[in-house]
């Protein structure tokens, strides 16, 4: 199977505007169709020949790559990609959208892949924005914690005895003479989880780390429902009700708390 053979097959469905070029001789070919994404770039469609007259039609991960220019590839984003791919009869695994099909289905599968790419870029843009910023917040706060406490901080703390399934993870435990148990709270769901985690781990942590201080770092406590706010404030010390930019100032404040908590 070569580029010429694949081009012939495509032109049966698409006419002279279809073209196949070789990207890796005998292994990876690129299909050029008059199918473009919103910014004018061509849809990314590749073909890998398989034995027995089959081909794998794949984007080689380009859809995710393009999405990642302006969004983190969170679980929500990749779930949405998978849903769109499935709707078009394709699979999504390990970052690639693809289908293994007989050669005679090359044309229709290539079109389905082009549609999937276009739909992913338009449909996922707005859906993912909120969750991305919540996850980014968590990532940024954790970076601040790592920078402030280096090897004194344990991220994703769980207690294997009390919670062998790891259902109640705590964002961080800072070791030292004034230990801190830290929950990062970007959203309402995280707030409720943090409250449950505290009740699960509190007695053991106090026993192992006398004087431990429970600290909540919310993105914006004011935006949570009143009862959730109350539960968080009842369970945790909240030094800042709004953290717009996790930065050096936050790191300094946390360091201060770890010596004078």
């Amino acid at each position, binding site marked *: 199977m070569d580029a010429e053979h694949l081009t012939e097959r495509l032109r049966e469905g698409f006419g002279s505007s279809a073209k196949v*070029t070789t*990207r*890796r001789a005998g292994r*990876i070919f*690129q299909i*050029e169709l008059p199918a*473009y994404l919103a*910014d*004018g*770039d*061509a*849809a*990314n469609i590749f073909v890998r020949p398989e034995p027995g007259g089959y081909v794998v039609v794949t984007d*080689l*991960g*380009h859809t*995710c*790559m*393009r999405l*990642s*220019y*302006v*969004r*983190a*590839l*969170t679980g929500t984003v*990749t779930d949405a990609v998978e849903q769109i791919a499935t709707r078009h009869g394709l699979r999504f695994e*390990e*970052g*690639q959208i693809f289908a293994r099909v007989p050669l005679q289905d090359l044309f229709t599968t290539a079109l389905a892949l082009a549609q999937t790419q276009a739909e992913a870029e338009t449909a996922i*843009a707005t859906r993912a*924005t909120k969750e991305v910023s919540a*996850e*980014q917040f968590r*990532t*940024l706060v*954790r*970076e601040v914690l790592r920078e402030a406490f280096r090897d004194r901080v344990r991220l994703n703390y769980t207690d294997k005895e009390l919670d062998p399934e790891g259902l109640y993870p705590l964002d961080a435990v800072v070791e030292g003479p004034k230990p801190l148990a830290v929950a990062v709270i970007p959203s309402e769901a995280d707030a409720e989880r943090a409250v449950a985690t505290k009740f699960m781990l509190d007695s053991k942590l106090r026993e192992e780390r006398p004087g431990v201080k429970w600290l909540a770092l919310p993105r914006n406590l004011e935006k949570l429902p009143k009862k959730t706010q109350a539960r968080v404030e009842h369970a945790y010390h909240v030094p800042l009700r709004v953290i*717009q930019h996790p930065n050096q100032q936050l790191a300094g404040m946390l360091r201060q708390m770890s010596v004078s908590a």
Partner: protein
Amino acid sequence: MPTLQDILAAPKTVNWPAKGKIKSPPTQVDADLELSCGVSGMRGQLVLYVRVNTILPESFSIGLRLEPQGKKPSLLVRLNGWHGPHPNPDGTIIPGHTAHIHLPTAKELAGDYTGKVELRTAVELQPLVGLVLPSPPDVVSVWPFFQQYLNIAPDPRVTTLLSELCDSTSQQSLEDALNGC
């Protein structure tokens, strides 16, 4: 209020380490580097992003992203490696398998830097850079042009990072490069 042209032309420096990523699929390697840009009146963060496809490393993208406060991030400039042909709104076509740069229009450059930038128009890179790029190009070979275009202060750590993204010798060496070591 600065214009987009003011932002692109302003001197910038790279902040280290690279921003943490949540996760990437195995088909790509990523780096996001925050840039300091001393333009008065500018709000938000400029981020230099780099993406390299691990199966076809000549398929890469390097660009400038604006993350304004309280708004969705947007791309201001984007330089791509090889992919299919790119038809421009004026009817010209960038041939497939050529590196090209997506640029704002004159109207977008003269407007408020937070305005909508569509980046539908691309320009083939080779005639712009004034030197012969390897065929296929890699992200390291286009960096000197991109750095100069965006007025980013020379920093050898960026070149090291880009080399690691193209052909990482080990996970540790990639992590060191992301940390600017």
